Each structure stands twice: as structure tokens, then as C-alpha cells.
């Protein structure tokens, strides 16, 4: 399918950048004139992915997070990437309620939320190298 538009943003894994990142992706997605609900879904998924990079990927250090977004006729593709500690067992990490940080009061529902708010979710990760979360959200066009 034809790419309509494309952007890449790099920012630091500081907590104040979570709401920044969410608005950047929402602003970009708004070029497809989505509904409020659709944009809320996208913002929630981006928040979860970025929070994971900050809290799990880089833990107490500050590293780089990259978001790539591509607009297509029928939706938006979003990649959230970090070069942090990576995930040992991806299948386990994706289980609802599973968290490696119960002591921080994490719910273990991040991946489950991304999966249910978006139309697809892929996770690629290598311990010591980092993680990429690839999501796609279909957006209903206004033609009706």
C-alpha cells in the first residue's frame, strides 16, 4: 500500500516525554481525520509502549527512544523502539497480568492494552540489545 506520510522522532527516556510522545503521534495521526475514540486508542497504546521503554528498557538510566509512524490510506503504523535491556521471554511478557516489576505496582497489562486498542501488535526484542513494538491501527475513512 502507498505510504501517504512518514516521520521519525528520537527523544530521551524521561518521564515528562511520555505525554509529549503521545501528542506527537496523535498530531500526526490527525492528518487522517480519525474519530476521537480512534485517537484515544492510539494515544493509550503509545503511552503504554513508551512507558515500557522508560521503565523496563532503561530502568534508572536515560536512553534514546525512537518512534516511527507511517500513514496509509486505511490507517497508521507505529513503531516504538528502545536500545535498552530487552525482553528474555517475549511470549511470557505478553501474557495478561505478567509483570517483571510487581514491586513497582505495575499491572502487567501494557501489552494486553496495546493489543486490544490496536489492530495488530508485534514485539521484537533481544536481551541486551533492545526492543521494538510494531503496531497498526486501522482508521475508518469518512466516506460513507
Amino acid at each position, binding site marked *: 500500500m502507498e505510504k501517504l506520510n512518514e516521520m521519525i522522532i528520537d527523544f530521551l527516556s524521561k518521564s515528562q516525554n511520555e505525554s509529549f510522545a503521545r*501528542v506527537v503521534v496523535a498530531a500526526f495521526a*490527525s492528518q487522517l481525520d480519525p474519530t476521537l475514540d480512534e485517537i484515544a486508542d492510539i494515544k493509550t497504546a503509545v503511552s503504554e509502549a513508551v512507558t515500557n521503554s522508560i521503565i523496563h528498557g532503561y530502568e534508572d538510566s536515560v536512553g534514546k527512544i525512537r518512534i516511527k509512524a507511517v500513514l496509509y490510506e486505511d490507517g497508521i503504523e507505529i513503531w516504538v523502539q528502545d536500545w535498552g535491556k530487552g525482553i528474555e521471554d517475549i511470549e511470557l511478557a505478553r501474557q495478561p497480568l505478567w509483570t517483571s516489576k510487581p514491586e513497582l505496582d505495575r499491572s502487567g497489562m501494557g501489552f494486553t492494552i496495546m493489543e486490544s486498542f490496536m489492530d495488530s501488535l508485534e514485539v521484537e526484542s533481544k536481551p541486551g540489545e533492545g526492543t521494538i513494538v510494531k503496531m497498526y491501527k486501522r482508521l475508518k475513512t469518512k466516506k460513507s
Partner: protein
Amino acid sequence: IGEIRRYLRDNNPIRVSRSLRDVAYKALQIRDNLVNKNSREPSINEIAEEMEVPREEIVLALDAIQEPVSLFEPIYH
């Protein structure tokens, strides 16, 4: 009436552009209130706290009611 409303809701979901405008006008109204109260320009955080909306969302909303200036209609000529 209820049925019509439901029809409109189901068939005409609110577009983001519309809700951004609502947030923006609210933010401008709150700015005016704060100017009157404190006799100075409020900062974005002061407006955001009052509205209970993240400051970045307010920035985005305010942009949505701004006309694109430069690209389409040069202002000085």
C-alpha cells in the same frame, strides 16, 4: 429524539478536529479568566492545571484553531 440522537452518534462519530476546537476555546476562556484574576499572562501549566488537561494537548488544540499562515497566504505584501 433519542433515536435521532443515537442515529447521529452512531453514524457521525465525533472527529478529533471538532473536539480539539472545544478544548482550544475552553483554554482561551480560562486564559482570559486567569489574566483578569492575576493581572498577568498565565503560563501553559497554570491553564493546564485549571483544565485538568495535559499541557501538550492544549498546545495541539490551540494549533487546530489557528489558520495556516505562511504557506498559503503570505501575510505581508
